[in-house]
């Protein structure tokens, strides 16, 4: 029995964080730093007539001014549509136009304000309905000429990307005489990640290379995107990352780094650039708002013979993550349940709003909410029990997902049983006769681990300790502070405190896909364990001579190499490391990892960067609510989670992630919403108006960790930090609908909105007129060709 796996070890960074000693990027204060400010657009759309930088250059303290001419490149994930500075056209309010570095922040801001920008304004297209209108202006004239970085998605005018799924004969299934057709519409708001540390960086220019310290989740993506935007070699950008004060996905792509890099090169001095909270509110790469229509054909016995859905995702002014995230609809909205036939389309739509990005369980939150509300409406139409319907229809061993991948293992159904047991283990929530409306809901969700490539090096030091070198960043989740050193310690028979974890530095560590998507423990963990395997082989080779035993008989335990079954025959790792200095040179190992590449069924998925899930993760959430019929206020009375974790390396750390993720989801479900006024300005300019959960809003989550589902992660682990937010909006929406006895089709469920539903006010009814009838009316591609490709 391991004494480091499945153990609640503390985190090594807690004490400094509690003493206020941890230095985040936003705290950087070395001598000689210049301070930078961006000149941002004050209108949401228009043609740039002229930009005069000269007034800024003449301002006191100014050391550098840069603009579009200094940054020739464009970046993106599927389509390189995003320049660093606005070029020719303004596409959102807050878009950078120029950047200034000066001796003080006040001087930089004053100089940025002095830049004269003349813009011929366009009527902004602020909603997806406006952008999809037949006579809408193209946000990206010349979109056909953008570099395509990933092939396969359809594009047209303001539709930046389209992904489709076709499996089985949906038309025939909907036409059956023995089915009932249920249709649901759902609208979800935009959510700001709002990490307490804003986006911040410090850039220098040293020996012809950019050296960037930044608050990011993806050092290698910052390296590559910065090089692309600046038109320099990737090798000429070094990215280092100190502790990050929260990310939640917002720091999953390049942001301020290229501005600071340009300014540092121009000024010949290091430059610090930090977004103010107001800038973060206006320009955060939020979770996108979305609009969904979903239809299903079901038999009276509760079999889902066909499903069809249209998902519109607002990518804002540039594509960013959303073209990639259209992939996820297949696995979230198209997931959970066995479907006879399925046809989906998800579209990333350009609007004159700030670009959106990634946020914990991207796309999954609203697609799961829409799907689970739809599922409850199916149950209501059939008169079936909502939990029993799910138990009978969830994907199990050998079932096909929407894109035709074969799922392995019965996971969701036993998790539902565990949820029932968890509920029964506690006293039921009281329902006093206080005039409030009480409701409850059980929801299921499917998510995945964003596996992808990772590299690791493990050095066995002369003192017998080990150093792990990866590009893994500590964003607060604790993966690099707890689970990963625990995995390395387990592999090498060391105590976790004898494993030093090197902070991320692209000059020291190999490529990594970043900390996000629940991938850290799986991908970096697996790469780390693979590196340990090489160290073990080398250690055993040397120790076998020292102990005169076969390497196959050796084990690593307690900082020693021992002969299995002969406890007295052993040497310390330190002795082996010292011996290595003389015999072979220092011992180190390298390891790498990437996904296994599960493929969709031929012809079923078009435009998908992820056509099938390498490593699915499941969650069952249940919540009890009380709704005040006079105010519309929703109180969450109890919240229960059964989460598929594969294997819990540090159960207490996982519990902390679940509590935090659920609470973020409660904010999303109930009161967090970014809205945009008629002038393109985000109305929520700070934390006074952007209402995040406070201590008094939350309940302790009851949690059951489900172990043992199939996983190729190290020791069978799955990532646990991302998925807790997945079905919170679903559980709350379904519970509120249960309480008030009315369909819920929009989040967040603010008191005003809930009251509108209770009072049947018309303006609370969702009507998605810009989504055409049926699936065919909503695809750019030739629907018949897509069907033919899928064998129909």
């Amino acid at each position, binding site marked *: 029995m391991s004494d480091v796996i499945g153990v*609640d070890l*503390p*985190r090594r*960074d*807690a*004490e400094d*964080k*509690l*003493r*206020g*000693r*941890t*230095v*985040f990027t*936003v*705290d950087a*204060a070395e001598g000689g730093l210049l301070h930078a400010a961006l000149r941002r657009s004050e209108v949401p759309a228009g043609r740039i007539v002229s930009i005069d930088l000269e007034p800024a250059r003449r301002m006191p303290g100014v050391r550098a001014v840069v603009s579009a001419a200094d940054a020739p490149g464009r970046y993106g994930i599927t389509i390189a549509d995003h320049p660093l500075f606005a070029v020719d056209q303004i596409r959102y309010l807050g878009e950078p136009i120029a950047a200034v570095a000066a001796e003080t922040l006040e001087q930089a801001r004053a100089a940025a304000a002095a830049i004269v920008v003349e813009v011929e304004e366009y009527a902004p297209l602020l909603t997806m309905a406006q952008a999809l209108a037949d006579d809408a202006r193209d946000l990206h004239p010349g979109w056909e000429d953008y570099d395509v970085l990933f092939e396969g998605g359809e594009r047209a005018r303001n539709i930046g990307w389209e992904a489709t799924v076709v499996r089985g004969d949906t038309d025939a299934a909907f036409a059956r005489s023995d089915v009932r057709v249920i249709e649901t519409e759902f609208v979800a708001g935009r959510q700001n*990640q*709002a*990490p*307490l*540390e*804003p986006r911040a960086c410090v850039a220098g220019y040293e020996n012809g290379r950019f050296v960037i310290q930044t608050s990011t989740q993806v050092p290698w993506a910052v390296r590559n995107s910065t090089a692309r935007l600046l038109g320099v070699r990737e090798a000429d950008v070094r990215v280092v990352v100190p*502790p*990050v*004060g*929260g990310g*939640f996905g917002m720091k999953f792509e390049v942001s301020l780094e290229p501005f600071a890099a340009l300014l540092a090169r121009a000024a010949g001095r290091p430059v610090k650039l930090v977004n*103010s*909270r107001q800038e973060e509110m206006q320009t955060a790469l939020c979770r996108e708002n979305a609009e969904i229509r979903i239809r299903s054909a079901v038999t009276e016995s509760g079999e889902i013979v066909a499903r069809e859905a249209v998902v519109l995702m607002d990518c804002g002014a540039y594509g960013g993550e959303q073209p990639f995230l259209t992939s996820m609809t297949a696995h979230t909205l198209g997931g959970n349940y066995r479907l006879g036939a399925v046809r989906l389309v998800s579209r990333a739509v350009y609007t004159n709003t700030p670009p959106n990005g990634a946020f914990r369980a991207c796309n999954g939150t609203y697609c799961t909410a829409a799907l689970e509300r739809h599922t409850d409406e199916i149950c209501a139409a059939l008169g079936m029990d909502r939990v029993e319907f799910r138990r009978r229809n969830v994907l199990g061993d050998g079932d096909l997902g929407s894109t035709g991948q074969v799922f392995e293992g019965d996971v969701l159904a036993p998790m539902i049983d565990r949820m029932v047991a968890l509920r029964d283990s506690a006293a039921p929530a009281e329902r006093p006769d206080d005039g409030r409306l009480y409701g409850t809901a059980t929801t299921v969700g499917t998510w995945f681990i964003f596996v992808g490539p990772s590299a690791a090096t493990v050095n066995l030091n002369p003192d017998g300790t080990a150093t792990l070198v990866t590009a893994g960043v500590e*964003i*607060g*989740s*604790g993966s690099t502070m707890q689970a990963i050193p625990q995995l390395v310690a387990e592999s090498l028979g060391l105590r976790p405190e004898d494993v030093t974890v090197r902070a991320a530095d692209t000059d020291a560590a190999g490529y990594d896909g970043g900390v996000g998507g629940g991938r850290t423990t799986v991908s970096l963990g697996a790469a780390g364990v693979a590196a340990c395997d090489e160290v073990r082989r080398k250690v055993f080779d040397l120790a076998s001579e020292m102990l005169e035993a076969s390497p196959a008989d050796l084990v690593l335990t307690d900082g020693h190499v021992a002969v299995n079954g002969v406890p007295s025959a052993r040497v310390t790792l330190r002795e082996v490391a010292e011996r290595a200095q003389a015999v072979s040179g220092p011992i180190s190992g390298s390891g790498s990892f990437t996904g296994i590449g599960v493929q969709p069924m031929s012809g079923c998925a078009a435009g998908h960067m992820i056509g099938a899930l390498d490593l699915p993760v499941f969650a069952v959430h249940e919540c009890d609510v009380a709704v005040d019929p006079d105010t519309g206020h929703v109180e969450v009375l109890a919240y229960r989670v059964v989460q598929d974790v594969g294997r819990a390396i540090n159960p*207490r*750390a996982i519990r*902390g992630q679940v*509590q*935090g*993720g*659920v*609470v*973020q989801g409660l904010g999303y479900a109930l009161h967090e919403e970014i809205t945009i006024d008629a002038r393109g300005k985000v109305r929520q300019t*700070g*934390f*006074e108006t952007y209402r*995040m*959960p*406070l*201590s*008094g809003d*939350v309940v*302790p*989550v009851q949690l059951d960790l489900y172990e043992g589902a199939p996983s190729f992660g190290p020791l069978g682990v799955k990532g646990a930090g991302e998925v807790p937010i997945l079905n919170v909006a679903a559980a709350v929406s379904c519970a509120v609908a249960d309480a008030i006895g009315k369909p819920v089709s929009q989040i967040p469920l603010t008191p005003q909105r809930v009251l509108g539903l209770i009072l049947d006010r018309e303006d609370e009814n969702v009507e998605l007129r810009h989504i055409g009838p049926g699936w065919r009316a909503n695809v750019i591609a030739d629907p018949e060709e897509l069907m033919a490709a899928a064998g129909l």
Partner: protein
Amino acid sequence: MTTELVVNGEARRVHADPMTPLARVLREELHLRGTKAACGEGFCGSCTVFVDDDAVASCLVPLGMAEGRSVRTVESLADPAGALSPLQQAMKDNDAVQCGMCFPGMLMSLTALLEANPAPERRDVHEALVGNICRCTGYDRIVDAALTAARAATGTKEEDAS
């Protein structure tokens, strides 16, 4: 202009515009970077410090208002070379910390609570944290840790775990 104040028990003189937010003076002039300034508008609580006996948002306090007063920051809670304060230790023991940005402010608000009310109820802790936002943890362990620290200090028995 010069302002004299006592910071963490030590008399300090600061040369700055008296309208400069105290949070900025602490961070940039006195290099006490434990005090965070995450929103700059008094809503997140990450810049909470004591001014005399009151826990306040230091981003809203002009330096001039601190003239002659005593300021305590997170760096004062424990001797740099010594043990953590009981509240800090309870946070560590409860594995409450995640990204850590809110904790300096949380600790100051809760230290104020425990100084005023050594035996708080759970509800009192929630009320004391009404001005502190944490985006990572979902609060529950922070509240538990505060109650654990209070019980340890007052010698009361732990409630039955829920």
